[in-house]
């Protein structure tokens, strides 16, 4: 009997964790960055769909931790540890941070993709989590799915095909 594989879906500015044999997915990454942190031995993975580089940008009353690179990665780590992942075994893969539209004006807002990528890398560096693979930048949207059993990140695009990293 084929058992239906569990797919954990992560929305925009959202995060979650999954255990094998489940997989974890987020769709339609543009300037947002999808960052996966995983423990291959324990077969646990967490995924965050990060929208903005830094929580200091927040002007609202409540803070959605999954939205910002700095708070999302910390939150993801806490969740993974709670699930039994080992800090020293953690590795990261990331995708997204594209620039969907080309403008001559607009300044920082238009550069939000690259800024998100930089911010995620900075945070991973602070927590000493090595990035083993990445597919960032460009001008195209991405849908990503991570399988904690194989440790592979599947990336789908509209115009540039499918690949695994």
């Amino acid at each position, binding site marked *: 009997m084929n058992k239906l594989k569990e797919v954990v879906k992560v*929305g*925009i*500015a*959202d995060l979650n964790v999954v255990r094998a044999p489940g997989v974890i997915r987020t*769709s*339609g*990454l*543009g*300037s*947002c960055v999808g960052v996966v942190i995983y423990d291959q031995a324990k077969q646990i993975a967490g995924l965050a769909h990060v*929208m*903005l580089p830094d929580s200091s*940008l*927040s*002007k*609202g*009353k*409540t803070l*959605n931790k999954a*939205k910002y690179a700095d708070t999302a990665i910390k939150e993801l780590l806490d969740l993974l540890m709670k699930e039994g992942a080992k800090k020293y075994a953690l590795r990261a893969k990331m995708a997204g941070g*594209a620039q*969907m*539209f*080309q*403008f*001559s*004006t*607009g300044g920082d*807002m238009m550069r*939000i993709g690259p800024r998100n990528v930089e911010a995620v890398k900075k945070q991973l560096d602070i927590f000493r989590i090595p990035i083993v693979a990445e597919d960032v930048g460009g*001008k*195209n*949207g*991405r*849908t990503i799915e991570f399988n904690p059993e194989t440790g592979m990140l599947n990336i789908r695009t*509209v*115009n540039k095909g499918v690949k695994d990293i």
Partner: protein
Amino acid sequence: MSFVEKLNQVHLDILKEIGNIGAGNAATSLSRLLNRKINLKIPTVQVATYDEMVELAGGSDQVVAAVFVRIEGDTPGNMFFVLPPEHVSYFVQVMTGDSSITFEEPPYSEMGISAFLEMGNILSGSYLSALSDFTSLNMQPSVPSASIDMAGAILTMGLIELSQVSDYVIVIDTILEEENSDRGEIKGHFFLLPDPDSFEKIFKALGVNIDE
């Protein structure tokens, strides 16, 4: 309290009227451009989560063609004109008289993209000029930019300002349809996403206080 929670029915009705006036003018322009009869559906105004907004355009993964315009002036904001790629092919074919142009598969013809951008330019210009006249506020469209990609990837671009303030967006969504189309329903969505600070200015210009 964020401005989103302060909105009441009067505010929502005003935003609906704004969608109506803007898209009404845009529909007239589109109709002239294509020499076809274009109808307007009653606009909807929704307070939605990011995911719900992307759902309105067909879902995060759905491939759409979109023109993005940044609104500059008194009330900055973002505007999208979103269509299924095959509908853009049709519109552009009618516009240019060249039936070989399609947007279903890359590479897209340069002429086709240029025509699509021009269509976006005309529509957003007429949408905003109607709003500007109605509110006496200065609103100007930036040079438009086009993309054919996943709806989630495209629309989140318009959420950057708003997402710093709120986890919800106010989406003013208006649907244009071609009448008696032999190609089934031809539909386009207008999404108007004013920046957070712009709402108060729009309401004030129309004599309504945001705290009412």
